[in-house]
């Protein structure tokens, strides 16, 4: 090993940060080179001088005491400023959770809203026209249609033949709306089909309510414990006339 290489490695050698092979090479060089040996010795001298423990600064006893008290202080102020609001956040969160639970429960257990029902009514109407399944009991005789529902439903819909008034009864059908089986009465006005969905209602008397959805007119009302939804592509005036006739 050359003096140049030894100089490069001498600090690592003194600090034992050089691998064994290099270490042995440096040692060998130091044995044969007086100048490098002197450098090495002087470095060791310097090291022992700086390692003199008298050079260390010892912390005053008061520092540890001061530090401990400020640690405790920091810890206390933290539990006041941090954990206290947390308690409130926690309380707020549990209140919110309860509120959500109540709301979800109410939503599940309550009757579907009118909006949801209207959508179901329209869908059911459209389906009845598409699937070639308009009637289960094709009859223009109200005395045939009404008894047909017996044993199929837990209520008996009021079935009226309105042929004289231009709304001819064409039959009845079982359908399913608002999570329950219901009665569907089918009337016809010229080429227009009217579906009247009927199911029991625990609500009070409700006046006619008209709405339009997907181009279909809808009229709903509640009368003597039954809710009616009439839906058709018939114009609103004639549908309203039809609804009036049904309610008479």
């Amino acid at each position: 090993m050359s003096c140049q290489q030894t100089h490069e490695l001498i600090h690592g050698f003194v600090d034992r940060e050089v691998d064994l092979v290099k270490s042995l090479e440096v040692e060998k060089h130091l044995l044969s080179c007086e100048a490098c040996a002197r450098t090495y010795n002087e470095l060791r001298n310097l090291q022992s001088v700086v390692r003199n423990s008298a050079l260390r600064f010892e912390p005053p006893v008061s520092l540890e005491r001061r530090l401990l008290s400020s640690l405790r202080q920091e810890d206390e102020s933290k539990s006041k400023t941090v954990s206290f609001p947390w308690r409130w956040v926690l309380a707020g969160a549990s209140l919110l959770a309860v509120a959500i639970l109540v709301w979800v429960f109410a939503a599940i257990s309550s009757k579907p809203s009118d909006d949801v029902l209207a959508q179901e009514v329209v869908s059911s109407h459209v389906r009845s026209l598409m699937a070639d399944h308009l009637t289960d009991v094709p009859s223009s005789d109200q005395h045939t249609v009404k008894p047909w529902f017996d044993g199929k439903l837990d209520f008996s819909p009021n079935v009226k033949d309105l042929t004289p008034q231009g709304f001819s009864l064409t039959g009845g059908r079982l359908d399913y709306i608002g999570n329950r089986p219901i009665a569907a009465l089918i009337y016809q006005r010229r080429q227009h089909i009217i579906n009247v969905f009927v199911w029991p209602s625990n609500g009070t008397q409700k006046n006619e309510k008209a709405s339009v959805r997907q181009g279909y007119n809808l009229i709903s009302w509640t009368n003597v414990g039954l809710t009616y939804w009439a839906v058709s592509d018939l114009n609103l005036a004639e549908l309203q006339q039809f609804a009036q006739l049904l309610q008479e």
Partner: protein
Amino acid sequence: MSDQSKVVRFEQIALPHLAAAYNLARWLVHNDHDAEDLVQEALLRAFKSFGGYYGGDPRAWVLTIVRNTCYTWLQKNRILAHAESIDDHLDEAGMDFADPETLLLQSVDIHTVRQALQELPVEFREVVVLREMEFLSYKEIANIVDLPLGTVMSRLARGRKRLHALLTERMGKEARVELSANA
């Protein structure tokens, strides 16, 4: 982890290194009062971020925070002026103690050594202190000062060389003073 056990745990982990922390801070900032304040500030900061300590060498952890706190203070007080250029003089890195006068070093008094070490630029001083007083490995020092291993080695070599030069210069003067006094 309850607050009580957090304090106790912190004390068990950090306090054994209070002496090392203070020694480093005192060598970096030069006066007792500031060193005490900075150690206090650093350890409080360490305590606040104690959740971020996931094991590892607690001494290195404490010294890193103390060192960084001191550096921030030095920068704020504009004592740290030449940090950017300190590693540029690579020509200085070579070692040459061939001066026969240097063999006198063993007899140097502690006051002179303290003075000379304090005169070293802080970047050299800190690696010398970490190596010779805390006996840290190059790798541990590199982690604490957040520099590549090579830079640490070069700073340590140059720091020693400067320190040696300062000491021999002082001793030379002393020797001359003694000689003239005797004459």
